[in-house]
Structures are given as C-alpha cells and as structure tokens.
C-alpha cells in the first residue's frame, strides 16, 4: 500500500492534473476487474478442477421467471439434458462462421465475380487443338483417348451463382469452402456434348483458361486445381485470397451447363454415353451386342445440371428453420469425426443435407425440432433403413416416363434419388461405405439411448480414424496393381463408365469378393477413400495411382474367428462347383464325422493368435486368386504387436494357450482342495487371485523342471536354493489362490489367535495335500506353496470374518463399532476384492477373447516405460477392461493391436482430474448409480487418489490406485502415451511396412539423474526384455520333467530385492524406475524437495550429512556416499552406476 499513493502523488505534482484522473480511473477499474476475475477463478475452477456447486438457498428457491421456465421446459423436451444442450450450443458456436468473417468472405466473393466476368474470350478451335492454351497451364484432365470431336471457345460465364453450404448457413469450420457455379454460355456447347467425355473436355478447358487468367491476378493467394469430390472427370478451380486471409476461405469454381441443355432422358442409368468404339479404339463387336450402360458417367453430368435446383430445394427447406441447420452442422461434424465425408463416394455434407430434406418431406423431421433432435432422427433413419435394398426418392411426381427405383438399384449400390427422379445422389457411394455409415449410426443410437453422461463427447468429439476403429487393416500398394485386377475381374465396362479410374472401378467388386470370403469372421469391411488431391495449375493432374494406397479396414467377429474351417456344400451339389471356383486350390473334398463329404477349406492355425490372423490368409489368397494382386502388394497389419507378448520359445502363440493351461491346472487344484478329507473345517470357496488366473500376466508361466545340479539343495525341506556361483535361477512366481474356510463357532474372536489358527490350517493343508495327492508342499505361517505339474500355487487360507474382527473398536462405553484399519483394508483387498476382480476379469476374457492380449500389451508397454511399479497390476487390468466394457464410440476390440492403440488413446486423453473411470464389470451398475458415483466423486475429489477407477465392488475408494501413481508419474504416463500413439499409428499406416514396431516400447532414458546398470547374469527374466537378447544365461531348467520334485526357487528376483532395499533406504531422496521384464537398467530421479537444505532433525537424517552453509548448519543428502551405496547394496548385480547429471552435486 505504501509506495503506490506516493508515486501517484508525485505524478500528480509533475504532470498535469487532467491527465491524472482518467489514468487513475483506469487503474481502479483494472484493479476491480482483476479482483473480480480472481474471484471467479477461485470460485469456479482452480487448475481445471471441477468443484461441487454451492448455491445459496435464496438463489435455489427464488420464484422462477417465465423465461427460465420456458428454457427448462424446452431443454427437457428438445434435448435430453441441460448439459447436452449447453454442449451442443458450444460446439455450434465453435464450428460456425463468425459474422465478421462472413463479411470478409462476401467481399472476396464479389471480387471473384468481377474478375471472372473480365476474363477475355477466345476464338473457336477444335477440341483436340489445344495450342491456344498459354504455356503456364495444363489441362486438368486425363484426355484418354485424346481424339474427340467438337469445338471449344472461351466465353465468360452466363451466370455466376453461389451454391452449397455457405449460403445455407450449414458450412462448418475448419476448411470453409464456398462453391460457385459458373454456367457456361450455350454457345460453347454443342449438340452431342454428352457423348464421349466431350462435355468434360470442354469443362476442363474452360477451367484451364480461367485458371490462367485468374492466376495472374494479385487478389488470389493461390490458384489450384482439384477434383469435385474426387471424381477424375470433373476438375474444379480453387481460389484462395491473398495475404493473411489465405486460410480463411477456399472458393471452388464449378463450371456447369445451362440447366436445360442436356436432354434428361439421354442420361438415365441404363443409357450409354461413352461409346466402346471411341473409348477402346476398336469397332463394337459385330454381333450387335448393346453398348454397356454408363450410369456413373451420366450421373456426373446430371450433377452439374442439378446444382442450382438442389440449392433451391435446400434453401426452401433449411432456410427458415435454424434447428435443421444446426442439425446439419452437427451431422457434418459427426461424419467428419468418422472420416466418412471426404473423397469419391464419401457421405458428404451435401448428402446429409438432402437426407434431412427428405426426412422433412416425409414428416419424420419437423422444422421446429432442435439440432440434437435432427441429429437423432437422421441417425435413427440411417440405422434402420437399408438404402442398398430399398432406395428412397425425393421425387413425388407420378410421371410414367421416369425410371423406376429398381432400375437404379441395378446400376448403383446405394439409391437416393433427387427431386427430378433421375439423379441418384448416392451414385458414387459404395455399399461398404454405406454399411459403414449404417454401422456408425447404429452405434451412435445405442450410445444416445444408453444416456451415458459423456455421450456428447463420444459422439461428436472423439475422432474415429480407421486405424483405431478397425481390428485389422490392410494396405494395397502400389495402386497400379488394381489396373491389372480390373482386367482380371473383367471390369472393362466399369472402366469405360468411370473414365479409366481403375481404383473406384475395382473397389466395389474387390470389397464384395473379400466380404464373401470372410463371411463369418467379418462384422464390417470398410475402405479408405482416395484423398482428394490438389495440384498447381502448371502441373499435369495426378494419376490414379498417385493417390497413395487403398486401405481396407476389417471389423472382426470374435465368435467366428475360432474356426479354422470354411465349410462348403456337399460334393454332389451344384453349388460345389462355385465353391471350388471361389476358393481355387484351397478347396478340398473332406469327409466329416457325420459321414457327409463336403468341399471345405482348412486354414493352418493352431494358436489363438494364428487364428486371429486367418483373415490375412483369406485376404491374400483371394486377392491373388481372383484379382491377381500378389501378397507382396498386400500389407496386412493385424498381428504386428504380437511379438511383444510372445513367450521365449513360442513364436507362434501369444500365450493364450499357456495361460489356459495354467488355469486348467488351477481348476484341478481347486477340485483337490474341495475334496480334501480330514480338514477340521470344510472349504467354502477357492478363488484365484493372481494375474495368470485372469489371463493378464504379461508372460504366462510355463511348467518348471529345475535341474538339480544348478541349485543348492535343502534336503530336509525338499527345496532348492540358488547358488552364488551360478547365474540366478529361473524366476518362478507362485500363483496366489485364496482358500476360504467355512465360518464356525470354533474360530477364535481375536486377531492374533486367528492368525495362529490360520497357520495351523496351512500346515494341515500341506500335510493333507502331500498325503492324499502326493503333491510337493511347503507351508509357512501365511501360505502354503504347492507344486503341481510344474506350476507353483500359493494357497492362502482365509477366514471371512477376519477383516471385521480387525476393524472392531470398542468405545469407552462398551459400544463396538467398525472402523477401517490399514490391516483390515489390506486383508479385505487380498482375500475379498482381489478374488472378485480376478473372477470378473476371467469372465470378461470368456466374452472377449482379445482381452488378454490387450491387457498384456498395455501392461508390457507401461512396464517397458519403467513405470510399471507405480501402477498396480489391477489398475492397469481395469483400464484395459474399460476398453471392452465401455468401447464407445468404438466396438469392443477383437485384436490386441487395436485394443492397445485405444489404450494409448484412452490414457492420453482421459481427464482423470474430473472424471472417475467407471468400469462396469458384469454390468452391475445402473445408469442412476453411475450418476450418483460421479456426483459423489466430485464432492470427494480432494480426498481421492489422482487416478480413480470405480468398479461395482469398489464404488467409493478406488482401492487399486490408492497407493499410486503420484500426479507426476501419471502425467508422465499421459505424455508418453500421447507421444507413442501417433508414432505407432504412423508405423502401422505406412504401407511399406511398420519398420521397427518396438520403437514405442523403448523407454526414454535421458530424463534420469542416475542410471544403475545391472548385470544380466543375475536378472532371471532377462530374456523377456523388449529387445530380447540373442543369448542369455542358463537358468537351470530342464526341458523334460525330472525324476523327483523338489520345490524350485520361488519368487527370487535379485533386481526386485535390490529395488526394495533401495526404496527403503533412499525412498525419500529419490525415485527408482525399473522394467521388471528383463530391464538392464534402473533409472533414478532425485526428488528436488529432498535436496533443499534443511535444519538438522533427529528424525530425518537418513543418508544426509551436515554441512555448514554461510555459518549455519544444514542437512543435505550425501550424494557421493549414496552413489557408492547403490553399488554396495547391489554387489554382484550392479555393473555400473552412472551419474548423468551434475545438478545434484551438492
């Protein structure tokens, strides 16, 4: 307070007083603003954290105004919640064009109009004589064959009209496009221009001349060619303003004929307008067979004619109803997020607008509906209607000369006729694209119906790129192979129709072929649409093969994946020949158990991972057989990541089989336990509590047969011991099994005594198992280790009431109340929650066979980043389970690869601060309960851990994340996932092959202050490392069961023992990071706060020393001694301690 007024006074003294006042006022105001801003910040959201809303009583219970009531009522009837309404409004605000920008665009359009009209005309020349074209411009069309009759001259357009979404107000950001139709004067066109691409040639020349003149104008920042919706016969001209507005808008010029120039009856789908004689350069076969129809060619001409009438239709429908416009904008966002709207045959915004117009005309949508309702109705319509079978039409005239819908179905896959009844709006949409749209609409409807809280986010905000949406993808590259495929598939008429575009000509037949071949394994097949290229006017238009690769996405049906057999018809039936023809040499006659002799195809696959890749065999076989595409051109991305979870010796399996073997062994053991005779109390439940028993152990256990010579023997306990002179023996982790004993009055009511009784039971259990079943057992006070068929199980006896007894607290008045204590919580977690979780996830694996792979890949990755010990096993399993239980907006993954990508996406985008991750195991939580959980979460946010995972069994406390990770570690994981995802996706999308897939699994080491290098000799799991070493040490295992069975060395992992010591001794000075799967390095990060010198305290001297600092004594960590301690504590294991940073050199 002191200096400020003094300064002001000084100012007032020297300067003139008039200047003073306003400036003072300004500061006062600013001050106020600042304080109010501060206030709101403190009140609403501190560092992006939601806080429970507190409204005063007066505010809550004041009389409502009619406006407020109206709004509330509207919200209830038009949207399904106020949150959704607000979200939709926000989204629309974000994607809409602002008025200011509109003004600028309008001004630009006026300029464009003027410039176009000023382009000079040219004298008439032959179409083939293009010498008049100036040097700097190329015709934006492949003129194949070149010779064509007709004359061309340039005249300024008869009319320039703005068409499309810009005028309708449904245009959305980013990339704002304004479509401008240039009506070519009648004088340019001739009578038979509809024939043999003459019209398209003239159109292209028209654009070329225009481009040349506009390119010289300084008004434009860039003048380039592109294709209309990717159609190779229809180029268009892109104009962008100069200077800073360059990215504001793109004006697209579409030349079009006068609307009544072509006779519509010439352009029906059954008519031919590209003569074979001209196109193929040969005379038509003499037998008088009719010319093939050219439906797509005809459609492209019709589209140009109808530009304006469509515009009129849409403006009458959408013009007055803002709800409809909102709906269209939302639908465009929806399509865009799903990558459905771009390219040739995309489901464009224009199509959706027409669909809305159709639904308005059939009264399924009313003009007063809100944007959300329009979205919902359209999705509902798409989800329930199959336009590939029952086309729809906007034409309601009963003109007998109009073609029937059936005619269109013959020529096109998807049928949606415009108001003229002659133009199929969906002509270029392939059946698979439409099915994809349908599939997406169905998923979205399910999402909307589920009333999920974050529906909006999932529906409109989550991108669904192909790589993350489909289980397997495959690239066909180079595209020129498709030309050969067209010939092989005898697609000449289609090529003629598509003007030589072999990619789109082959697309339909290829997808049909694959769909037929994959039948029971396939849920959905989608293809990428070639991107719409842009090129400079001085360049030749890109070739068909330049559009990169064709990518197909397969959404697999998990239940169909398990079969290796493709069952055909019986040998004597006529279909057998078709079957043989379809499968070629792979089809064999086989005799089946029921006596039938059938044609069948059998694929080679033994393990689950191989079965998952049968589609690859099918696809490569069929493509080679029918389309002449060799397997070198098919790049299949499905099992690329499998190598990371493969065991040491199994290169063909991703471990599902080994896990199943372990689980089978456990089942046998539990049966033995149930049937055990002679226990004083009966066994009431046997439950697994180990990752293996829920199929999520990264490297499944294999039966161990230890070599005696490798170990020290402890005969009296029948156990093997590690030998100091040998490398560390193989790591055997016992699998925990919880064995509940029945409740009885015999149990003592005292915690200490219960512990003793349990120990007695452990001893008894071990005796009985040895006596009755000859199993090698070793009992301790808390568990019994049992060796069965090479697997080791750790049976823990539990008593149901023990946690409760640990909780009991007697108050002074003698009232017994239950309070959680650390011991009771731990016991409850180990004997109650963990078995429940294990059985729930075991069940999940039965439903979704890919769960195991995804969970293990995810865990593998987190551990490879050295963060595995900060996250509990269970928390990572639950995150993986969430991908299956809440896959929206996707479907549950059917391959580990896509599941892992989604794991990375989830981790990198989930807002842990403001949301609990709800994992609704067994679907036990109702929607209301979930809402309750969310509100409870917000209220208790500060007491909860950073990462909150809620399950039906654990609704409040998130037990699996309570002890970690810390916010910094979680943040680190988020950052790593966000970095890894694009890298991995890029690798998988690269048609030349993914390169080194392990890149994202290698941890960054440059952030650590100290690296402790370990010697592989004492790392028992050395071979599990991401970059598996070519050779490692012998771990003393036999390949065959040995003569007798001594208990192998259990849970002996020197790096873990070392880490435990380090953490105990230096846990408050540093963090230690290690990959338990064969890591050779421990990363150490000093904790900055512990390095602040602080005064001497008897309770806090660990590893510190006293130094005098400016005359005062202070404690600082004794770094040099600590570094030497690292080596001492890990003697034999530590190879080198490398201090990498000097910054802590105190």
């Amino acid at each position, binding site marked *: 307070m002191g200096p400020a007024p003094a300064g002001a006074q000084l100012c007032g003294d020297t300067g003139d007083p008039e200047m003073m006042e306003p400036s003072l006022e300004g500061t006062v105001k600013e001050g106020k603003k600042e304080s109010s801003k501060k206030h709101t910040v403190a009140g609403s959201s501190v560092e992006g954290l939601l806080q429970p*809303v507190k409204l005063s009583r007066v505010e809550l219970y004041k009389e409502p105004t009619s406006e407020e009531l109206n709004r509330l009522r509207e919200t209830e009837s038009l949207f399904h*919640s106020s949150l959704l309404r*607000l979200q939709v409004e926000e989204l629309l605000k974000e994607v809409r064009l602002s008025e200011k920008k509109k003004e600028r665009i309008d001004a630009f359009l006026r300029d464009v109009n003027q410039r176009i009209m000023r382009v000079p005309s040219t004298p008439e020349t032959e179409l083939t004589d293009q010498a008049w074209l100036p040097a700097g411009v190329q015709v934006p069309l492949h003129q194949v064959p070149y010779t064509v009759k007709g004359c061309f001259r340039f005249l300024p357009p008869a009319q320039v009209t703005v068409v499309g979404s810009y005028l309708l107000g449904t245009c959305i950001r980013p990339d704002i496009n304004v479509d401008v139709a240039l009506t070519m004067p009648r004088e340019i066109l001739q009578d038979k221009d509809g024939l043999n691409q003459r019209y398209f040639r003239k159109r292209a020349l028209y654009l070329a001349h225009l481009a040349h003149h506009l390119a010289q104008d300084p008004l434009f920042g860039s003048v380039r060619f592109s294709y209309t919706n990717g159609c190779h016969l229809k180029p268009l001209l892109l104009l962008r303003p100069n200077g800073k507005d360059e990215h504001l808008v793109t004006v697209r010029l579409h030349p079009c004929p006068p609307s009544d120039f072509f006779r519509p009856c010439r352009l029906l789908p059954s008519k031919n307008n590209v003569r074979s004689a001209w196109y193929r350069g040969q005379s038509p076969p003499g037998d008088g067979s009719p010319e093939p129809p050219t439906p797509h060619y005809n459609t492209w001409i019709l589209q140009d004619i109808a530009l304006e009438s469509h515009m009129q239709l849409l403006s009458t429908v959408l013009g007055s109803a803002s709800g409809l416009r909102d709906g269209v904008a939302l639908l465009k966002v929806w399509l865009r*997020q799903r990558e459905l709207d771009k390219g040739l045959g995309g489901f464009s915004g224009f199509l959706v607008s027409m669909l809305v117009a159709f639904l308005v005309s059939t009264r399924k949508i009313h003009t007063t509906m809100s944007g959300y309702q329009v979205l919902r109705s359209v999705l509902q319509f798409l989800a329930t209607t199959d336009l590939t079978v029952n086309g729809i039409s906007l034409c309601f005239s009963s003109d007998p000369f109009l073609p029937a819908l059936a005619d269109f179905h013959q020529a096109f896959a998807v049928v949606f006729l415009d108001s003229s009844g002659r133009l199929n709006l969906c002509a270029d949409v392939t059946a698979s694209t439409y099915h994809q749209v349908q599939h997406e609409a169905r998923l979205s409807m399910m999402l909307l119906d589920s009333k999920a809280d974050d529906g909006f986010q999932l529906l409109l905000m989550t991108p669904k790129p192909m790589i993350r949406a489909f289980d397997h993808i495959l690239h066909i590259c180079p595209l020129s192979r498709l030309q050969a495929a067209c010939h092989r598939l005898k697609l000449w008429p289609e090529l003629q129709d598509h003007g030589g575009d072999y990619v789109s000509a082959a697309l339909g037949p290829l997808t049909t072929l694959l769909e037929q071949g994959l039948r029971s394994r396939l849920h959905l097949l989608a293809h990428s649409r070639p991107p719409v290229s842009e090129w400079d006017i001085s360049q030749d238009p890109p070739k068909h093969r330049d559009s990169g690769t064709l990518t197909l996405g397969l959404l697999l049906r998990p239940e169909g994946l398990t079969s290796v057999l493709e069952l055909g018809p019986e040998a004597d039936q006529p279909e057998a020949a078709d079957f043989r023809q379809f499968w070629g040499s792979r089809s064999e006659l086989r005799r089946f158990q029921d006596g039938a002799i059938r044609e069948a195809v059998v694929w080679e696959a033994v393990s689950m991972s191989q079965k998952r890749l049968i589609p690859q065999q099918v696809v490569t076989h069929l493509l080679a057989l029918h389309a002449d595409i060799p397997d070198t051109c098919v790049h299949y991305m499905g099992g690329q990541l499998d190598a990371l979870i493969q065991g040491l010796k199994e290169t063909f399996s991703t471990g599902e089989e080994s896990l199943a073997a372990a689980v089978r062994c456990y089942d046998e053991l539990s049966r033995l336990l149930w049937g055990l005779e002679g226990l004083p109390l009966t066994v009431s439940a046997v439950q697994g509590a180990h990752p293996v028993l829920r199929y999520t152990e990264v490297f499944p256990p294999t039966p161990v047969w230890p070599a005696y010579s490798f170990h020290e023997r402890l005969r009296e306990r029948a156990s093997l011991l590690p030998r100091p002179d040998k490398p560390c023996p193989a790591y055997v982790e016992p699998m925990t099994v919880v064995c509940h004993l029945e409740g009885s009055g015999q149990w003592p009511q005292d915690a200490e005594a219960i512990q003793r009784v349990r120990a007695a039971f452990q001893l008894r259990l071990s005796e009985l198992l040895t006596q009755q079943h000859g199993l090698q057992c070793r009992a301790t006070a808390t568990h019994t280790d049992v060796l069965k068929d090479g697997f080791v199980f750790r049976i823990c006896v539990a008593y149901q009431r023990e946690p409760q007894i640990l909780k009991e607290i007697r108050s002074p008045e003698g009232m017994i109340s239950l309070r959680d204590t650390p011991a009771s919580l731990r016991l409850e977690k180990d004997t109650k929650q963990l078995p429940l979780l294990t059985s729930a996830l075991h069940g999940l694996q039965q439903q979704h066979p890919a769960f195991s792979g995804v969970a293990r890949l995810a865990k593998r990755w987190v551990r490879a980043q050295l963060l595995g010990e900060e996250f509990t096993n269970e928390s990572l399993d639950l995150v993986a389970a969430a991908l299956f239980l809440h896959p929206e907006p996707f479907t549950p993954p059917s391959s580990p690869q896509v599941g892992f990508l989604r794991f990375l996406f989830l981790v990198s985008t989930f*807002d842990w601060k403001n949301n609990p991750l709800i994992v609704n195991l067994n679907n036990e939580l109702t929607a209301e309960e979930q809402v309750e959980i969310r509100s409870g979460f917000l209220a208790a946010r500060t007491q909860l851990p950073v990462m909150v995972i809620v399950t039906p069994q654990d609704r409040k406390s998130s037990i699996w994340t309570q002890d970690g990770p810390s916010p910094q570690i979680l943040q680190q994981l988020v950052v790593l996932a966000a970095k890894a995802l694009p890298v991995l996706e890029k690798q998988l999308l690269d048609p030349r092959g993914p390169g080194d897939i392990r890149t994202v699994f290698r941890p960054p080491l440059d952030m650590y202050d100290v690296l402790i290098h370990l010697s592989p000799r004492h790392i028992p799991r050395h071979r599990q490392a991401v970059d598996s070493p070519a050779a490692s040490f012998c771990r003393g295992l036999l390949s065959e069961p040995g003569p007798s069975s001594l208990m192998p060395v259990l849970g002996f992992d020197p790096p873990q023992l070392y880490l435990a010591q380090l953490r105990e001794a230096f846990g408050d000075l540093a963090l230690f990071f290690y990959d338990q799967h064969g890591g050779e390095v421990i990363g150490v990060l000093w904790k900055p706060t512990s390095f602040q010198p602080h005064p001497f305290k008897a309770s806090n001297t660990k590893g510190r020393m006293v130094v005098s600092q400016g005359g005062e004594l202070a404690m600082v960590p004794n770094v040099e001694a600590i570094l030497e301690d690292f080596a001492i504590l890990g003697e034999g294991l530590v190879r080198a301690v490398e201090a990498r940073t000097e910054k802590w050199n105190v």
Partner: protein
Amino acid sequence: MVARRRKRAPRGSEDGIPGPLGYSAVPIKFSEKQQASHYLYMREHRVREGTKSSWPQKRTLFVLNVPPYCTEECLSRLLSPCGPVQSVELHGKPELAESPKEPKSKFFHPKPVPGFQVAYVVFRKPSGVAAAVALKGPLLVSTESHPVQSGVHKWIRDYTDSILDPEALRVEVDTFMETYDKKIAEEEAKAKEEEGVPDDEGWVKVTRRGRRPVLPRTEAASLRVLEREKRKRARKELLNFYAWQHRQTKMEHLAQLRKKFEEDKQRIELMRAQRKFRPY
C-alpha cells in the same frame, strides 16, 4: 543452488566434519575401497525432564544415520574398542522404550528390509559413551577379518533363511493356542460366575450368553434399530396431501434443475477452457 558446490577437501581434516548441536559426526564406510563416507551422528542418550525412557541413563549411546548394511553385530564390533558393549538395538526411528524382551515370532513377523536406522548402544560403563563420541573414524563396516555380505550373497542367504521349519511353526502355534485357550476358558468361567449375580449395588450384568440373549452392543445393531424406527414413522406420514407439500415438491424439483444447470454450466466452462469443443 549453484553456489552450493563446494570443495570436499576440508571434510577429511580433523575438525572439518561439522556435527550438529550436541552430536559428534563419525565417518563410516562400507570397506576400504569406498571413497566417500556416511556420517554417524552420536551423542549420549538423554531425555527431557519428565519423559520416561527405559534406556539406562549415562550408559546409552544414541546413534543416528546408521547405513542399511550395518547390522547390530557390526555396530557392536565397531564400538567395542570404546568399552564393553552390553546391547545394540536398531530402530527405524527414535524410540524411547526398549523393545519388549520377548522376541517377535520369526514366523509371523518376517524381518523388514533395512533402511537408514537409529541405534541405541548400551555400554557396560559410562566411559564407553564418552569414548565413542570422541571417535575419529572412519569406521569400516566390512573388513577382511569380518566381511559383511551384501548384494547377491545377502539375498541368497535371506532366501535360505526364509525357508523355515514347519515343525517349529507347529510347536509355536500349539503353545500359543494352548495359552490362548486357557485364557479364554478362564474368562468364560469368570463370566459364568458373574452371570445373574447382582453386584454390590444390586445391578445385574446382562450378557449375550444369558438365557435371554439381548441385542449385541455394536454400532451396526443400533443403526439398524434407528433405521427401523425411521421407516415406521415414514409410513405414517402423508405425502403430497396438503397444498404446501405440492408447492414444496415443485419448488424442490426446480431447485434440483437449477443446481444441475449450474453444475453443467461449470462443466461447460471448464471444457471450453480445455478447448474441448473443437472437433478438429
């Protein structure tokens, strides 16, 4: 921060090792090979007036910052030159009481992993404390004559030690349970005696074991009773009967909606701040 870099040379000199108030610093190293050393901070064990401590006065040496590889035996050996050592105890943090005489069962309380610890060393004579405080060091934990195991050798030994004799466990459990059973039996006998017998003032103690068992005195039971009462009362009340009740429920509904609306607005605000509305 940068200014904190200093030369290490003065530390080796005799008086150069700064010790905090009342403590003397004694360097300690694992073995000859190590360059740097940790410092033990020692002083005589003293407590403030009024606090009780079971350590013998004058004869107890209090040692801070004992490195993890330094065991009780080792410390005893290192300090024995100062005078005969009676006992050495290591603790995680300073404790005033001696640990109970009875050692904890090794079956039920496995040895924890050691970190830096504090030690209470009791000498037979008070002179030992003075001699220890005056030690110059550096002390060596592991020497050729008395090697201390660490690393792989230690882990293998620990693993071997962890495999215990089940018979010994059985014996221990049996003895424990015998005494426990005896104790319980005594208590029950006593309770039976008291059953129904009025005390001096004529009060009779009612227990669960009586002929007519009563409600257990637990929190859960009392909560259950309360809940039942509440339900009974709720059944008698009329709902939405009076006009004011109608009005109130409507108002309540409106308030709910308002609250929800406010919450939603807050969420939107947050989402906007996080740019969650850009679909591109």
